[in-house]
């Protein structure tokens, strides 16, 4: 069965390491924070200028001067630091964030990602997404494997305007965990109960399937 949003987040959380500084995008990536493995700590970077983002505030803690990159009110953990936007993106663009998790509309076999713009629809802007994909070595894209209409989002070449070129190496969809290298997708794991055939059918870009494709375990 296809993974739920929570299960996608749980599988991403398995990639965390103790001491990681992590930037989580809006949507499914945000959920990853709920599944940090026991005995492990990560620190969340919010690109509007906060390292050590905490949970939402209580009514008493609510503070208009304390928001995250999604403009939601948040708190800071003990040991957090706050800085300006140039410093925040120096951190991101200088490769100091250990893991970035973000969503996408499409990725392709060359590691290109399209995530910010659908021509003809309203254009809201890329925010920090272009900086995040260009600055990080370690990025995990989370998205559904295909659209509601069954159109693959893992393509030979992205069709939408790019957010970044050649910067994605790992994609976690509701069906599979996929690595991108040497111009091909490589199937690493499949969602429990999902067949390799189903994944192959919904992957438009060239997919290398090893003899044995383990199921994800949670």
């Amino acid at each position, binding site marked *: 069965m296809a993974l739920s949003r929570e299960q996608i987040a749980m599988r991403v959380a398995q990639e965390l390491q103790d001491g990681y500084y992590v930037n989580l995008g809006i949507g499914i990536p945000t959920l990853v924070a709920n599944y940090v493995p026991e005995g492990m700590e990560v620190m969340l970077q919010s690109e509007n200028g906060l390292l050590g983002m905490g949970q*939402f505030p209580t009514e008493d803690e609510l503070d208009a*001067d304390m928001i995250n990159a999604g403009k939601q009110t948040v708190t800071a953990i003990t040991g957090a630091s706050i800085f300006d936007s140039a410093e925040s993106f120096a951190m991101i663009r200088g490769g100091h964030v250990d893991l970035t998790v973000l969503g996408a509309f499409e990725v392709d076999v060359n590691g290109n990602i399209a995530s910010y713009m659908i021509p003809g629809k309203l254009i809201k802007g890329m925010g920090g997404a272009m900086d995040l994909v260009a600055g990080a070595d370690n990025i995990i894209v989370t998205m559904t494997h295909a659209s509601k209409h069954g159109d693959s989002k893992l393509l030979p070449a992205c069709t939408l305007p790019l957010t970044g070129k050649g910067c994605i190496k790992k994609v976690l969809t509701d069906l599979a965990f996929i690595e991108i290298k040497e111009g091909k997708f490589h199937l690493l794991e499949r969602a429990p109960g999902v067949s390799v055939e189903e994944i192959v059918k919904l992957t438009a870009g060239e997919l290398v399937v090893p003899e044995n494709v383990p199921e994800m375990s949670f």
Partner: protein
Amino acid sequence: MAGFDKVVASYEEAMAGLEDNMTVIAGGFGLCGIPENLIAEIKRKGTKGLTVVSNNCGVDDFGLGILLPERQIKKIVASYVGENAEFERQMMAGELEVELTPQGTLAEKMRAGGAGIPAFFTATGYGTPVAEGKEEREFDGRMYIMEESIKGDFAIVKAWKADRYGNLVFRKTARNFNPMAATAGKVTVVEVEEIVEPGELCPDEIHTPGIYVDRLIQGSFEKRIEQRTVRSSDQ
């Protein structure tokens, strides 16, 4: 030190000299840390044809969004626009020019503008629509694009506290783009919640030195919250 006292008496005086078709750089992220009263003064003045450089453009009835109904903004340079019906209408109708700029590039362009750096290279945007018309270059096996700096005729900034010399301290994530904006205006106008005497701010804890600040005014702030997210206190 009269020469260093940056305090002005009114918002009118604070924005004196702002003229049609000028470029205004504004601090703030979403509605957090925005110079809300300086924006209101621009609305009151009715200045038109402005190029505004700001991460976002406010909402329909607050922040930079209030400059839209009277078409005071000709062009906006921002990383994320939305949450704003009139903005959408004007953009779709071609009445408003929008230059989308990645958030980190935007912050760095402001900083560079204030720091005497006319251009820099960044990997951000390489191979994307942002790179169109820009120089591309390889350094150490990786591709980058050249981005030019931004300066404003005016910079409008919101800080928490200031001393009379214009030394600024920001509070929490309301800092965001404000320190960079402060460096990049020919005239930098700052509004704060509290003005203190020189010496009350520790020199090591000043975020923006007064050298960047031309005018300073104390205001009262609505500080509207865009996404009010709370947890119950027993969680």
